[in-house]
Each structure stands twice: as C-alpha cells, then as structure tokens.
C-alpha cells in the first residue's frame, strides 16, 4: 500500500527529466567542442524515454508504471562546416567541422524538460495534500 498514491511513477519521471536536463547542459557546454576522445567534433546527445515495466504493464494498465531513460545516444546529423584556416582542427582546405549542437534547440529542450519536471512536482504536491486529507478524515 502506498499512502501517497502514484508517487513511484512521479519519482522515476523526476529522475528521467533530471537526466535530460543534465544532457542538455552537456550539449550546450560542448556547443563549440571540436576535439573529443573519440576524435572529431562533439556529437549532440539525445535522451530517449521508455515506459517502465512495459511488458508487465500490458495486461494491467493500473500498475504504477513510471518512466526510465531508455538510451542516451548520439545525434547522427552532420555538424556545420565553417572556414577558419587558423583553427588547430582545420582540415587541409581550412574547414572546421563544428559540433551538431543547435543552441536554440537545446534551450527549447531545456524549457520542455523543466516544465515537465514542474508538472511532476505538482503531482507530488497534490498527492501529498490528498494523503493529508485522508489522514484527517476521522478527526
């Protein structure tokens, strides 16, 4: 029995959104990184979500199925090439391949993630108040 209902799913969602915020921060931080350990410019990372216990949920939609991070994968899109012959990572033609990070797009992602995080927080608040009412029922 959960006294505060549905808090399990919400907790996992808060975690997942936080991971997403971390990845967005990483992408923005590396928006100009042209050299990485794997070689080549930094690749934008994308977080994919997955419903938790998807197979067990199939029969009963009532379970407290949360969300988890399915994968953090690299965006395969090619990075923009700019002409800068004095750049240490420039090729023989003087072109530098920049990371495929679009900062304005990352900002949109940042706001979406933070809004979803807030929505989940208000679920916690409501669930808590409901539990409080239930406890006070006999008084």
């Amino acid at each position, binding site marked *: 029995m959960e006294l505060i209902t549905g*808090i399990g799913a919400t907790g996992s969602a808060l975690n997942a959104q936080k991971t997403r915020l971390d990845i967005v921060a990483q992408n923005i931080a590396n928006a100009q990184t042209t050299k990485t350990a794997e070689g080549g410019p930094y690749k934008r990372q994308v977080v*994919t979500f997955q419903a938790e216990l998807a197979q067990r949920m199939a029969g009963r939609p009532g379970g407290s199925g949360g969300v988890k991070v399915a994968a953090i994968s690299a965006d395969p899109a090619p990075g923009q090439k700019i002409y800068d012959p004095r750049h240490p990572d420039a090729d023989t033609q003087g072109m530098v391949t920049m990371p495929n990070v679009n900062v304005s797009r990352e900002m949109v992602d940042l706001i979406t993630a933070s809004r979803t995080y807030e929505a989940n927080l208000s679920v916690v608040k409501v669930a808590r108040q409901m539990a409080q009412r239930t406890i006070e029922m006999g008084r």
Partner: protein
Amino acid sequence: MVQRIDSSLTLQIAQKSLDACVLRQQALSKNIANAETPGYKRVDVAHDFADRLKVAVLRGGAKGKLPNATLVEDTKARVQRADGNTVDLENELLQLNKNQVDHEYLTHLVGSHYKMLKTAITGRNMA
C-alpha cells in the same frame, strides 16, 4: 433490528468513489510521468464507472454489490505528438486539480459521517 454501523449507502458510495479518486490519481501521475515517452497511451478510470455506480445504487445497492472502478487505456484521447503519445499535459494537470477537489469533498463527506456516528455514540458533540 440493529443495523451495522458501516452499512449506510452514502458511506458505501463515498467509499467506492474515494477508491476511484485514488485510482485516478495513480493514472494521472502515470500519465504525467510518461508525458514524453514515445508511444505511451494515457490511462484513466473507465468512463462508465459513474454510470455503473448510479445504476447499482438505483437498483438498491445497499445490500453489497457496488461496482469497483478500473483503470483502462483511454482510447478516446487524441494523439498529441508525432511519436503516438496521447498525453496532453495541460489537460492532465487540470484533471489532477479536479480530482483533488473531488477527493477533498469525499473525505469531508466520510469524515463528517464518522463525526455524526461519534456524536450518536457518545451523546456529545465532537466538533
């Protein structure tokens, strides 16, 4: 004949509705948690629960058989995103608040019912 203390029909209806409320809270928190999960379909308390409860009450449900609320996939929900997700975050938050008010009303109802019982038992006003 002495009636059982918890046999009041109002109390039974309130209990079933309260169960539905808690179930709904679970569904809504699940939906909001999965607002960004590709292909997730929103769940909700079965649409016909209120009708089934009403029918059972009209048939004189005091003798026991009131329906239980169940969670089902909401097939009427429109697809909100290209990945097939049917969660509309604003609507979920709206329903969450509505559900909270419903819950508050029902707990108040049950609470005052018990208060009445206490008054009847002790002969003192417990307020």
